[in-house]
């Protein structure tokens, strides 16, 4: 099958630096003395912790259960004892903390229950649930829960499945090595994904600077029908989901829509690999391959358990002495780690040791000269310089109008900017500010609604109370009138005889009296009503006992009434 190649606009060609870390095969990291597993490792809500300090866990045991469907489970990466469940600093640009489970491995690496599933016999819904409970998320870096991406749209199926092996960002080689070494498993994972969405065809997009990976994937998928391995031209960001979909199918997906709406969906090769492990071996996602490169003695790819402290991994790569910081992710989209000793997460595809010689400090930011270089480089076909002006002026409405949410933050614009403007920083600021404003607005709207409802309720209750009171008074008055007509007949007649002038006053007086009398009667009725009723249906013996007790009580009361005798 020959797939037509479309191209996306823009992009840049930075030095790839992929050679350094592709010479050695993937090595398995030794068990670290401690594992720190953050509970929130995917888009969506943080899972709820299922373990407490002191508890023993087995490898693959679920330690964080997904809250709702828009989340993914977290598992113990090895067997051992839970030391603590407390907030720890995350590998996140903010350097903020969130709940992490700290595990001390027992060294046995003993698996818990593993139930392999024959996917051909299972329903897509069951498979999606297995993937959610196995904590499978997109391993390309966005960590979007895979089971959500596998939900077909209205059609009930997704026509084209795209497998992303482009790995366009410099330095990163973890997917390359995975495809070279474990192509068979990836191919089986692809078959499972294909089965879930009943896709007609599968396109595996790999940048043409990875001939070995292309060959391996071609051999592995040779026997499957309608699976094509398509080399895509090497140009950053060919591995961006939207860019790859566009390059392979010509479909453009706007912001806020999903691939499913366009009959296409995209998964990373590492995700396909972990899907295969989850279904065919019953192993949840507890490890991933991390590229260690940059300013290190031994650049390599390591299969590390999720939660392994990064400095444990760095020991294997031996960073050089002049390393001044570490970057997680690639040099284009990654961020400087706020500290070492932070754990590997599902998003950690690459750790780069940076030194001033390798990544010379960017020059001072100069004014934008509107040269338009960024517009030519933008793969999302936006106008980065306009977005820059609007973001800088905090004119968010206008920035949104110019499509800032379509920006994938690939960094091409900042890469080509002759004025060294950190454009992406401005976009990130604008985007997160807008999200915050939106969230605050939703909260304010809810508060307004609740306040208005409360005011309404208060008024209604007041009106109801007034109505009740009026009804009660009216009823009482009526009753009094009824009583007043018969009872005080003689005095009324007497007053009538005495002075006809007092006549209108008398009934009012009587009414009041009658009202008071009625109220007293009511209270008395209530009082007499409050009698112990649990003594009614009892055996004669019990009743005799009660009588005895009551007489004793009476006696005591009598005694209490008589004044105490004076001491002699």
């Amino acid at each position, binding site marked *: 099958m020959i797939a037509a190649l479309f191209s996306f606009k823009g992009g840049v060609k930075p030095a790839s630096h992929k050679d350094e870390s592709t010479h050695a095969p993937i090595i398995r990291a030794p068990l670290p003395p401690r594992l720190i597993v953050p509970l929130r490792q995917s888009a969506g809500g943080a899972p709820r912790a299922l373990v407490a300090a002191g508890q023993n866990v087995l490898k693959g045991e679920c330690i964080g259960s997904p809250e709702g469907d828009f989340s993914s489970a977290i598992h113990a990466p090895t067997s051992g004892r839970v030391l603590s469940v407390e907030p720890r600093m995350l590998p996140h640009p903010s350097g903020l903390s*969130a709940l992490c489970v700290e595990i001390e491995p027992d060294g046995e690496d003993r698996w818990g229950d593993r139930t392999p599933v024959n996917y051909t016999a299972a329903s897509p819904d069951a498979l999606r649930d297995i993937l959610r409970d196995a904590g499978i998320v997109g391993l390309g870096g966005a960590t979007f829960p895979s089971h959500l991406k596998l939900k077909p749209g209205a059609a009930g199926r997704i026509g084209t499945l795209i497998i992303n092996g482009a790995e366009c960002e410099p330095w990163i080689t973890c997917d390359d090595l995975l495809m070279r070494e474990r192509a068979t498993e990836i191919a089986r994972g692809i078959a499972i994904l294909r089965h879930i969405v009943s896709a007609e065809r599968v396109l595996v997009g790999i940048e043409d600077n990875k001939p070995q990976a292309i060959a391996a994937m071609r051999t592995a998928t040779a026997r499957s029908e309608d699976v094509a391995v398509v080399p895509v031209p090497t140009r950053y960001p060919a591995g961006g989901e939207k860019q790859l979909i566009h390059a392979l199918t010509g479909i453009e997906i706007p912001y806020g829509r999903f691939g499913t709406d366009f009959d296409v969906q995209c998964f990373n090769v590492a995700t396909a690999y972990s899907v295969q492990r989850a279904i065919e071996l019953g192993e949840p996602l507890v490890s991933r391959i991390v590229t260690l490169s940059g300013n290190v003695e031994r650049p390599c790819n390591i299969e590390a358990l999720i939660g392994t402290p990064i400095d444990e991994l760095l020991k294997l790569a031996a960073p050089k002495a002049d390393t001044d910081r570490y970057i997680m992710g690639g040099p284009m989209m990654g961020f400087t780690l706020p500290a070492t000793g932070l754990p590997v997460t599902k998003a950690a595809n690459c750790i780069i040791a940076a030194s001033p010689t390798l990544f010379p400090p960017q020059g001072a930011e100069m004014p934008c000269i509107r040269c338009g270089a960024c517009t030519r480089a933008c793969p999302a076909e936006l106008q980065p310089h306009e977005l820059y002006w609007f973001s800088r002026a905090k004119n968010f409405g206008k920035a949104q109008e110019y499509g800032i949410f379509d920006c994938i933050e690939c960094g091409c614009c900042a890469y080509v900017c002759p004025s060294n403007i950190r454009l992406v*920083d401005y976009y990130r*600021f604008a985007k*997160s500010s807008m999200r*915050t404003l939106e969230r605050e607005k939703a909260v304010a709207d809810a508060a*307004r609604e609740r306040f208005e409802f*409360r*005011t309404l309720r208060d008024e209604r209750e007041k009106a109801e109370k007034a109505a009740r009171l009026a009804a009660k008074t009216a009823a009482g008055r009526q009753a009094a009138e009824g009583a007043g007509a018969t009872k005080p007949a003689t005095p009324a007649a007497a007053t009538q005889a005495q002075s006809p002038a007092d006549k209108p006053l008398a009934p009012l007086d009587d009414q009041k009296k009658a009202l008071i009398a009625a109220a007293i009667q009511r209270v008395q009725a209530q009082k007499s009503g409050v009698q112990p009723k649990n003594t009614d249906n009892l055996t004669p013996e019990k009743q005799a006992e009660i009588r005895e007790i009551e007489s004793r009580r009476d006696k005591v009361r009598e005694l209490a009434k008589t004044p105490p005798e004076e001491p002699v």
Partner: protein
Amino acid sequence: MVSALLVMAGIALVLGAMLGFASIRFKVKGDPLVDKIDAILPQTQCGQCGFPGCKPYAQAIAKGEVEINQCPPGGEEGIRKLADLLGKEFKPLSAEHGVEKPKQVAIIHEDVCIGCTLCIQACPVDAIVGAAKQMHTIVAPLCTGCELCVPPCPVDCIDMVTVPETVETWKWRYPVIRLKEQAA
């Protein structure tokens, strides 16, 4: 001459009828300005402005009876937005109405609470759950941090705590351009 007058009068009549129809058909219910002002106000319903809620304050602003700098939770940003909307001059927050604070939520110390329901009656947004002689608790996502529940509490078991920044609510800072490298 007469025909010209008739034509002009006819046009005037037709246009007048259209305007009259439009004024009835497209009548705007309520005051749109009040809604616009209300949308800027933070909906804390704290009453620090001297009005029983954000809407009454918005109405008073729309009538031009009060200053726009009486809302501490809205802060400086809120005043700027109001000034922009109403074409008024920006004024710093008036000190007698309070000071701008980071977003807070109330927390009830549940072992101290005696279940008097006074805070429930004070809460403007029904964010407190409880019943007489039963422990009360705050529904934190609904709490606006208005502090109205704090004074009525007879046992002082309500505290205001600042909402910490989490990874979900964290936002990128405004890029700061350093013109000169600072000396270490």
